[in-house]
């Protein structure tokens, strides 16, 4: 046993990355993420058109959008804009919403849930009652009101989404934290004289990672679609800024007449969420030392 121990790589993170890269599915997911992020960042160079350019030849004489193929890789939208270009630029918005807003929601949810679960005193009770209150509050209404009160811009929308979406995470994390707090190694830490903060951040948070990965990746599509709903209600990202979600919502009634306008962005959202999930799953396994050697 001792000899194998010596051969183990000395630093955990480096090896984690290497092991992550060994997984085919994770690689696939990572490739998609890189592709999307790359597309979003390099949009101005890749995109064949300007994102809000309403091309004269982008519509038929009857004002119909053009299907994919030919000059327009993914077809055009109802205003005769190139869908591929809009998908590229939309990736920026959707990444911000799906990753940043969802991430902030996850962080808020985790903090609230962990604090409430770990500090069972009045603070915990207060936080949980607040969570209950937020849960009872119709999320969409809150989003609409907040977005209407503050002028909707991408970052406001992202914050609104974060403020609305943390509740479920908080609930789940709370439950999990309470059970983690009962675990014996937490008691062991206490006998070592570890501070609450240390127990919380060093010993409880890492165990929440699998849960957070599941909720975080599922949250991507949820938040991206929520942004779209908000756009639809007029309190989302303002046109002509494209986002994958609002491309869907703008065109959803046309799903028969112009299916590409709904299914292409739909597939993109799905793929992005899936990619994050694949990477997340792999990351979870890789970060979980008990899974070592199983890959």
């Amino acid at each position, binding site marked *: 046993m001792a000899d194998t121990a010596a051969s183990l790589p000395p630093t955990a993170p480096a090896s984690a990355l290497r092991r992550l890269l060994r997984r085919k599915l994770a690689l696939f997911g990572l490739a998609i993420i890189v592709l999307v992020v790359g597309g979003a960042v390099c949009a101005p160079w890749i995109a064949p058109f300007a994102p809000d350019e309403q091309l004269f030849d982008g519509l038929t004489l009857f004002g119909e959008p053009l299907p994919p193929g030919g000059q327009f890789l993914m077809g055009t939208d109802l205003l005769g804009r190139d869908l591929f270009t809009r998908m590229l630029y939309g990736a920026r918005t959707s990444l911000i919403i799906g990753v940043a807003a969802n991430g902030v929601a996850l962080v808020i949810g985790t903090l609230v849930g962990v604090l409430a679960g770990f500090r069972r005193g009045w603070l915990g009770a207060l936080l949980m009652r607040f969570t209950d*209150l937020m849960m009872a509050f119709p*999320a969409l*209404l809150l989003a609409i009101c907040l977005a209407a009160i503050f002028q909707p811009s991408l970052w406001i929308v992202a914050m609104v989404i974060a403020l609305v979406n943390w*509740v479920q995470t908080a*609930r789940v994390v709370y439950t999990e934290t309470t059970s983690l707090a009962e675990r014996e190694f937490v008691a062991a830490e206490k006998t070592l004289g570890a501070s609450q903060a240390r127990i919380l951040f060093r010993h409880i948070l890492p165990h929440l990672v699998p849960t957070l990965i599941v909720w975080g990746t599922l949250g991507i599509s949820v938040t991206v679609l929520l942004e779209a*709903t908000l756009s639809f209600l007029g309190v989302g990202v303002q046109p002509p800024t494209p986002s994958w979600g609002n491309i869907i919502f703008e065109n959803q009634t046309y*799903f*028969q007449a112009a299916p590409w306008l709904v299914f292409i962005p*739909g597939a993109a959202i799905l793929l992005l*969420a899936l990619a994050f999930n694949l990477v997340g799953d792999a990351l979870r396994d890789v970060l979980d030392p008990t899974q070592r050697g199983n890959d």
Partner: protein
Amino acid sequence: MLGYLTRRLIQSALILLGVSFITFLLLYVLPADPVRQIAGRSATAQTVENIRHQLGLDQPLMVQYWRYLTGLVQGDMGRSYLQKTEVSTLIAARLPASLLLMAGGIACELLIGLTLGIVAAVFRGRPLDQGLMVTSFVAVSAPQFVVGLLLLYVFAVQLGWFPIGGYGTFAHLVLPAVTLGIMGSGWYSRMMRSSMVEVLRQDYIRTARAKGLTRGRVLLRHALPNAILPIIAMIGIDIGIFMGGIVVVESVFGWPGIGQLAWQAIQRVDIPIIMGVTMVSATAIVLGNLLADLITPFIDPRIKLR
């Protein structure tokens, strides 16, 4: 038990109070004037002032809130600004439909979600499992409007199995409930899968198998009740998520629920209706959570309500 219930009810009442105040406040600061909506485009300034005074909208926030609250306590939710009808009448007329749809949606998502979750857990690690989990992602990511129209088109228009929208019979309920349930089924299948995988590892499952029980019985009688426990708490949370979906689904299927009422009210700042729908849905959520908590001891005898 009685003590627990009383405490929870008081807690719920406080939560509802909080919800009512926040909503009221948000609507108050909302940059849209309901009086303009009522007065219409040909109104004179005098008419506008008259209406504002008539509705008491010229009073300070706290006075307005207090008035609303005292009314609410007496069961008076006010009158719709635009429909001039008692909000309670409007909601009462539509609530049963929404509750039915919600129940249908929950039933659907549980049925689909749990089944998929169980199957995935049983076949964990195999292609079927992976396929199902991708499916669950599709379900979560699919916009409800499109799903609804798609289902309608295929099953009602093309195949003619169900009526094209409407309300009344069980056949009417199926498509809207499925549409509403599909998104949740994605969540549930994932949660059920992990919960089930965990339960299937437990000693008592081995015991059950050692008794010579059939696979189905082991799964349904022994694993399911245990695996479903963490999920029950989720159903309470779900009601809140449903309130959003209900707007879309109701409009696609012409379902006469409160979603449409709320939607129109929000569009036109019909504050009494918005307040009413908010309060009703908040009550539904709070009661749903309470119910979920009350149910768990029946499934898990170890849990004692305190």
